[in-house]
């Protein structure tokens, strides 16, 4: 019961903090002080109190976009184990529902973007669906590997099964898996080198350009939902990359929170030292990630 409460409060409260940490890390690299860690929370509160501007071309689809996206992400977040703690809801086949819930949220984000009739948002939407279609097989290769290792078909068992021992017995495939999943994490959340979350107005943008016309509370939902997606996919990644176990329930929660903070710092470092890829290179990197995870699967099947 306490674990469930902690799970829900972490899911609801922690995601914007990751964005704050990423921002602070990037500022440190650039030699700036940077915005406070809690800046994303302030932004969200501010946005929720702001008025909205709606484009004349938009319809109910535009308004439904952020709502459905946030709801689908929230439901997906209840299926993911955090650290060594199983998810509050866990059943056979939940990993497929998990993947398809993100598909649902993508459908509505892109539909809302197309509803504005702007060519820029159309471009962003086209890129978003094309790239994430290439990410899907990577995720499923990784899920097959995890299912094979843990002999289980629930996300919680698959991800909490990993332990430091696995890194010794199946180190090579774990390394490939971590590499592929990190690329997936960055691509799905539109971070550098796939997309730059700090600029809005360039022809090369993906996620940010899709939400150009959203404003006020709706934009707040979008930012919150995006942060939550980063948190959820990050939690999956950290479960595989850093399967540290303390033995005590509270200790595991501590390990998880520290792990997520480390992940945010890592993303901040990647964003500071790398430039964005040219758009035509992105599919190549995504297909490379798919092949990496396919290799990981082969090594585990062997």
């Amino acid at each position, binding site marked *: 019961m306490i674990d469930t409460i902690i799970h829900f409060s972490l899911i609801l409260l922690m995601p914007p903090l990751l964005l704050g940490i990423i921002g602070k890390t990037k500022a440190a690299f650039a030699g700036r002080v940077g915005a406070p860690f809690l800046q994303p929370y302030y932004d969200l509160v501010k946005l*929720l*109190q*702001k*008025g*909205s*501007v*709606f*484009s*004349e*071309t938009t*319809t109910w*689809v535009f308004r439904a976009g*952020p*709502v459905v996206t946030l*709801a*689908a992400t929230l439901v997906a977040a209840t299926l993911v184990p955090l650290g060594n703690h199983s998810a509050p*809801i866990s*059943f*056979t*086949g*939940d990993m497929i*529902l998990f993947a*398809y*819930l993100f*598909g649902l949220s993508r*459908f509505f984000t892109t*539909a809302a973007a*197309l*509803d504005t*009739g*702007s*060519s820029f948002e*159309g471009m962003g*939407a*086209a*890129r978003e*669906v094309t790239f*994430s*279609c*290439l*990410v*899907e*097989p990577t*995720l*499923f290769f990784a*899920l*097959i590997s995890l*299912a*094979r290792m843990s*002999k*289980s*078909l629930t996300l919680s068992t698959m991800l909490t099964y990993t332990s430091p021992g696995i890194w010794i017995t199946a180190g090579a495939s774990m390394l490939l898996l971590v590499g592929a999943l990190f690329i997936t994490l960055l691509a799905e959340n539109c971070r550098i080198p796939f997309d730059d979350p700090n600029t809005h107005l360039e022809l090369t943008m993906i996620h940010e350009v899709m939400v*150009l*016309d959203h404003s*006020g*509370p*709706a934009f707040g*939902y979008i930012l919150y939902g995006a942060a939550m997606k980063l948190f959820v996919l990050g939690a999956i990644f950290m479960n595989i990359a850093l399967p540290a176990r303390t033995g005590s329930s509270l200790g595991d929660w501590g390990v998880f929170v520290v792990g997520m903070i480390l992940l945010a710092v890592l993303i901040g470092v990647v964003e500071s030292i790398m430039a964005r890829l040219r758009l035509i290179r992105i*599919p190549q990197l995504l297909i490379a990630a798919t092949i990496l995870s396919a290799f990981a699967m082969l090594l585990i*099947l062997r």
Partner: protein
Amino acid sequence: MSYDTSFHSDIYGMHTHTESFMAAGWQTTDYLFAGMVASVVLFGISGLPGLFIKKPGWGQLIATGICVIAALLGTGTAVQTVVTGSSTAGYLIDWHLPFGPCEFSADPLSALFLTPLFLASGCCAVYAVAYWPAREHPGSEKKLTFFFGLLSAAMALVVLARNGVVLLIAWEIMALSAFFLLTTDQRDPDVQRAGMVYLIATHIGTMALFILFAMLRGTTASFAFPVPHSLSPDLGVATVILVTALIGFGAKAGIMPLHIWLPSAHANAPSHVSAMMSGVMLKIGVYGIIRTVSFFSLPPAWLGWLILCLGGVSALSGIALASAQRDIKRLLACSSIENIGIVFIGLGMALIGIQTNTPLLAAFGLTGCFIHILNHALFKPLLFLGAGAIIHATGTREIDRMGGLSRRLPRTAPLFLAGSLAICGLPPLNGFIGELFLYLGAFNDAISSPLPALALVAPLLALVGGIAVITFIKLFGTIFLGSPRSPEAAHAHEPPLAMLAPMSLFALFCLIAGICGQLLLRLVTPAVASYAQLPPAIIDRMESSVPLASFTLLNLSLLLLILAIGLFYTRQTVKLPCATAATWGCGYLAPTARMQYTGTSFAEMASNLFAPFVTVSRSGPSLSGPLPAAARFCYATTESILDRVLIPVFQAIGLAFSYLRRMQHGQMHLYMLYIFATLFVLMMWRH
């Protein structure tokens, strides 16, 4: 007369006596079977009164009334038969024709295919009243109404037939009615060409079926279907029978590379006919393959893998083709190839499971296959009927000329959205449930099998699902969102209730089936158990290992959460100031609707990635000098398999035959010489 299929050999001695039938007392299954037969007869005769009534419109209304009654009766009895799971109340007409008595019967497998058939026929008949009204089409309406009923009846007969020749007769009636339906608009050259390609393709398929049933007759000495699981797969003719079944029935199902007739036929037929062809007629092909395999005691090892590979190729290339289309109905037709591919993946998985004696795999594969068949028969007619409403409203099939229709067609838009979400397999709609079973089959194989090659189905399905999202976001977005790209789109109008009601019914079923996956499972498990001869324990194990109740719970909580956040958002926006302005054009001052991303530009990136399946031809202007002349840019996507493989092959064959044609010169005396020479050679050979 009712009988048990197990004493097939005795049938010939028996005669039908309706009186004794009545005296013996009817069982429930007899009533159910009689209901289905009555429904078939009603569909068959539904168009007849219209042929004799002079006053336009009355014939169509009478036909629709009969079709609705037939659909209610047929769907009810078919669902009952499926759920009770008791097989084969039969009916036998012992006529004195050379191919033996004419037998019909319905087991859970037949009833499973009949359920969507009757439902879709009824809905499409209602739709036709508003879509193809007799007032506006006095010439073609009678023909359309008559053949529509005949098509439904013939498809049902194919599924009910238990005799090869009877099946072929029904098959031919079905194929020809479909031809007359799709050439309704016969003055249009596109329609003529599509009709011709369809006619040739369907007859190549029929030719393979003639070989199939001749071979079966050679094996069992009767045109009656062999008792299920009675033939040995090691027989020499087994391979021939199965391959001809794959060609003959597969061509009707539209699997790659036998799909060439499909996109143009579905695109050029009236929309409710496309809905029937895509939603139901393709499945009759799948039924044929499933039925043929059931004659054998064990499917041979190669068959499962072949079907699985064909399914994988069809799914991937079908959806890649669909993503590049600009014609709304051609896009939906290509996506049918994808969905048939998914059905084949499930079937292949099941056959591999049966062959390798892994019953759980067989159960997962077959359940996924059957559920997807039902699902596709719900959302594909919904989308085709929606496409009809859009074409009705705008007068064009080109999606790049549409846009902003969700304002003009506020009721059609959410229905079409529901269909799009369902076909992408997204929760909480029904497409998800079928794919779930296939995924679980693949994952189970990944866990338990020593060499889990089947596990690769999961990433493949994921990729196909991803491309489906591209395709249907493109379709929905280009048609309904943004601003109108042409005056036709700007003045579109909502379709009448007779068109909206069938679509709403399909959408409602999609939602109910998506939330309560148990209903779908309940429908297919009897057929799965009887077809794969699985003991109840295996079915129970599969049912208990897939907690559909949890999926229902999460789907419901998803809907509730959407509702709650939506309400919260509306309350917030009411309180806060709210303004409207033009879409932010990134500083550009005079944006026009033509600057919007079109469907083609939306899918351009994806089509480049799927270059093996989709060829892109660009004819661009070459600009030179400071003041280049007016130029024209043309971008078209074509189909690789047709253009690069089939057309060159057919051209080579045509060239070879052109030499043979020189012998055909019309000079009678030389023809007589040919006959003499042939006879002479044969005589020399004999002695």
